[in-house]
C-alpha cells in the first residue's frame, strides 16, 4: 500500500489547510502537535486509522529531527503520497515562521506582557489536559494485555526518574516487543 498513483488535489488541498490550522493553533510543542494531528486526522476526518497513527508517532519519535515535522510528513505521506508529505510539512511550518517573525521583533515585550503570560498559564494547563485525554484514549487501544501494561509502566518510571533519552526506551520497546512475539510469550 503506497500513496495513491494519481495525486488527488482536492484531498491534498484539504490536507494543507488542516495542517496549516494545526500549526497555528497548537501550543506545547511536538508531542502536543502529533496528538492534535491524531485527533483531527483519525478522530474527526477519518483519514487515517487510529492504530496506525500510534505507529506513526512511534516511528517519528525515533527519527532524528523535529517530531511534529516527522509526524506530519509521515501522516501526509500515508494520506496522499509524496505531495501529501510536502504540503503537511509546509502546513505545520508556515504558521510558526510567520508568527515567530513578528514575535521576534518585539519579543521582550511579548515575554514580559502580563496578558500573554496569563493566557500562557491557561494554555499550559490545557496542553496537560489534552495530553492526558490522549493518554487515556491511546492507553485503551494499546494496553491490551499484561505485557503492554508492564512496558508502559516501566518506560514511564524510567523516563521520569532516569532522564534516559526517549530513543533508547523506544528501541528497547521494539526489541523486547519483537522478542516476546517471536518467543510466543505475548
Amino acid at each position, binding site marked *: 500500500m503506497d500513496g495513491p498513483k494519481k495525486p488527488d488535489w482536492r484531498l491534498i488541498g484539504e490536507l494543507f489547510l488542516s495542517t496549516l490550522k494545526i500549526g497555528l493553533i497548537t501550543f506545547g510543542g511536538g508531542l502536543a502537535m502529533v496528538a492534535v494531528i491524531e485527533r483531527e486526522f483519525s478522530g474527526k476526518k477519518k483519514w487515517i486509522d487510529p492504530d496506525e497513527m500510534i505507529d506513526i508517532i512511534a516511528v517519528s519519535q525515533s527519527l532524528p529531527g523535529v517530531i*511534529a515535522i516527522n509526524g506530519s510528513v509521515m501522516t501526509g505521506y500515508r494520506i496522499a503520497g509524496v505531495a501529501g508529505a510536502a504540503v503537511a510539512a509546509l502546513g505545520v511550518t508556515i504558521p510558526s515562521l510567520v508568527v515567530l517573525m513578528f514575535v521576534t521583533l518585539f519579543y521582550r515585550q511579548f515575554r514580559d506582557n502580563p496578558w500573554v503570560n496569563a493566557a500562557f*498559564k491557561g494554555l499550559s494547563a490545557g496542553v496537560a489536559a489534552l495530553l492526558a485525554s490522549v493518554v487515556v484514549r491511546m492507553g485503551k487501544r494499546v494496553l491490551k494485555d499484561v505485557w503492554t501494561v508492564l512496558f508502559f509502566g516501566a518506560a514511564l518510571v524510567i523516563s521520569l526518574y532516569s532522564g534516559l533519552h526517549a530513543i533508547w526506551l523506544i528501541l528497547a520497546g521494539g526489541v523486547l516487543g519483537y522478542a516476546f512475539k517471536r518467543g510466543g510469550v505475548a
Partner: protein
Amino acid sequence: MLRLFFIFFRIGLFSIGGGYAMIPLIQQDLVGAGYMTLTEVTDLVAISQMTPGPIAVNAATFAGMHTMGVAGAVVATLGVVLPCALISVVVARFFFSRMDSALVQGALYGMRPVVVSLIAGAMLTFAVSSLLMPGGGLEAGAAVIFAGVFTLALVKETSPAVLFLLSALAGLAFYAP
C-alpha cells in the same frame, strides 16, 4: 547566511527527540558562532515555548530573524525542516510497505506502550509546571482549566482548536492583572 542554513541543517539532522533535545545544540552552535548571547538563547527557549507550533521550528525562525532578518528566518527554518522532512519521506516509504511483516508488527507491539508512556511523561511535565505552585499546593485556576479541558476532550471530543482557545481565555480570566 549559508552558515546559518548549515547550522540548522545539522541541528535538524542530528537531534533525536524533538525540540527540547535541540536546545543544547542550538545554544552551542549559535553562541559558539557568535550569533547570539546566552541570555538571548534563554529568551529564544522561552519564546519558542510560548508560541504555537513545533518548538524547534519556532527556535530556528527566532534565531534566523534575530540574526539576519526575514531572509535569515526563512533560511534557518528551511535548514531545520528539510532534513527531517526528507528522512521522514524515505522512512515512510519503507515503513508503510513493510508494516505488516512479523518483524515490524512485533517491534511495534513493544513500541506502542512506550509511546503512550512518553506522552504521559510530557503530560506530567506540563501538569507539574502549571498545576503545582512553586512552594507546593495546587494552583486553583489551572486545576479548573485542566479538569474542564480533560472532560471536554474525552467526553465531548471537543476539537483541539476550541480547547486551546478556551484554555487561553480561562488563563486570562484567572490570571490577567
